[in-house]
């Protein structure tokens, strides 16, 4: 285990932890969670973050880790809500997963299902966009092309690509119903 952080770093970590907690709480409340539930989720994130906070080098890494943990925790909350009955063996077979943990990707079934749900929401959102935006997002998110490759494919200037990328992202979020997460 890495050594405990120095006192000044310790202070930075504590500040970052407070900030992350505040931001996660703000995100959940903005998504329509009631305060008690939001506090519970944020607290869970803090516990997970505290378990690993010695791994990070500075406050920014703490925030980055906090975002990852919050994403997983929030997805878990939505999964738990949807899970009215345990997943049957047949359903698992249909998903083409043979075991709870797929050795190829290291993802658990529920994580794969969550990814699929997100992609479905995003693709539905993309279908509601103008062709130009759809093409840009396809190249960026699906084909994972670099900015230079996208510029060459779409025949647009570098500055314009950055502007268009940001606008298309906002349009995508609106088109997907305001969020890529499940229902709050």
């Amino acid at each position, binding site marked *: 285990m890495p050594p405990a952080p120095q006192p000044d770093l310790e202070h930075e970590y504590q500040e970052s932890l407070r900030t992350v907690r505040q931001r996660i709480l703000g995100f959940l409340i903005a998504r329509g969670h009631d305060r008690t539930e939001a506090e519970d989720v944020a607290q869970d994130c803090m516990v997970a973050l505290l378990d690993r906070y010695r791994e990070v080098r500075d406050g*920014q890494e703490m925030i980055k880790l906090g975002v990852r943990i919050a994403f997983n925790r929030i997805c878990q909350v939505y999964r738990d809500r949807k899970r009215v009955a345990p997943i049957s063996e047949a359903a698992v077979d249909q998903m083409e997963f043979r075991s709870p943990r797929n050795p190829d990707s290291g993802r658990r079934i529920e994580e794969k299902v969550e*990814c699929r749900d997100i*992609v479905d929401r995003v693709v539905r959102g993309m279908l*509601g966009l103008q062709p*130009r935006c759809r093409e840009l997002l396809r190249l960026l*998110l699906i084909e994972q092309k670099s900015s230079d490759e996208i510029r060459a494919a779409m025949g647009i200037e570098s500055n314009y690509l950055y502007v268009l990328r940001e606008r298309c992202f906002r349009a995508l979020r609106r088109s997907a119903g305001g969020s890529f*997460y499940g229902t709050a």
Partner: protein
Amino acid sequence: MARPDDRDPAALIPGYAAGQLTAEEERALFEAASRDQELFNELMEAEALREGFSSAEERRRASEILRAWDRSAPAEETPAAAAVPYHGQEPLWATLLRPAISSFATALAGSVAYAVIKNIGSSLGVPQTRSVVAPALQTVPAILHQVQAAIVALLLGLQFTPFLRPQRVSGEAHPIAQRCLAQFIRGWRWAWVCWLCLYAWLSFHPQVREPMEPITDILNGLTAFPLFWCFLVLDKPSVAVPGKPGRDAAFRQAVATTWGIGVGVIALAIASRLHWWGLGEFGVAFLGIYDGLAIAFLVGRFDSHWMQVPRWMLAPLYGYALIQMIYVFFDQLDPAWSVYTYLVALLLKVCLFFIVTHLLHAGHMRRYLEAAEEGVLGPQSGQ
């Protein structure tokens, strides 16, 4: 132009979702997100995208769905009707005539209802209200009209000088937005020409105008036409492109409809002035509503966040629309109040001029039209 992400951390969000940020950029983004809740929320959304598309299997599946959609979409978008130019569907005069007749018929029906209610009221002993249409704006001294005409002429002339010139749209990157902007500016200038004609006419001595009072209504009604045009340029795809000659069909139809209604409303106002068919004040009241709606619709478009007009700044503009609607009651106001309201209207007209000039000059209108061309105003975007 510098890259937007040099100054705006929000521009880094797409790069984060696609996993394309450098360590330095990622650091800058997280630092900014720790200070800004809105940015943090966007970061959380981007995290979902990043996770979702990190799976090669999901990317392949998404790609197949989009390919299937692209294959099926052209077939759905090219029915025979879509390929037919607008003028092949219905003659323009028919599109103009229908709303003109329907607005006329609506007002006549209203007039009949009014006459019935008035007669019932008088049979019950309720005193009748004054029903003679007095020429509106008659109570305002001619000098005020002359001042207003001079100000309008000045503001119109300003639009043809290099001062506060509108920002141009690059025709190479945004050919449609460029033509839309030209359409808007054309409509906007015509609105000022119409106002100039109206106030120049009102500047004549009332004794000169009185025998030809319907001209006031014609000129007043005509001021709304270019304002509706401007609104529709911002609201609908108003430019035909080589591959889609019927792209502006909805725009042309909407223009014909609103102008057709205007023709009907002007006809009613004239009928009111000439005391035909016992219309009372209905015709003139409709004209006020028509003028007010033209301004309200246009101002409503300025509420888009792309225009970046502060909400409080829209209040006087909506106020100006409301004043148009009460124009018919000017003659019933105390003369001092008529003058006061007239001056407020003049002030609000100047406000409208400066707000639109700012939108054009600062580039907000350009950005709005470019965004509309790119289809990023929303799923149902106009241009």
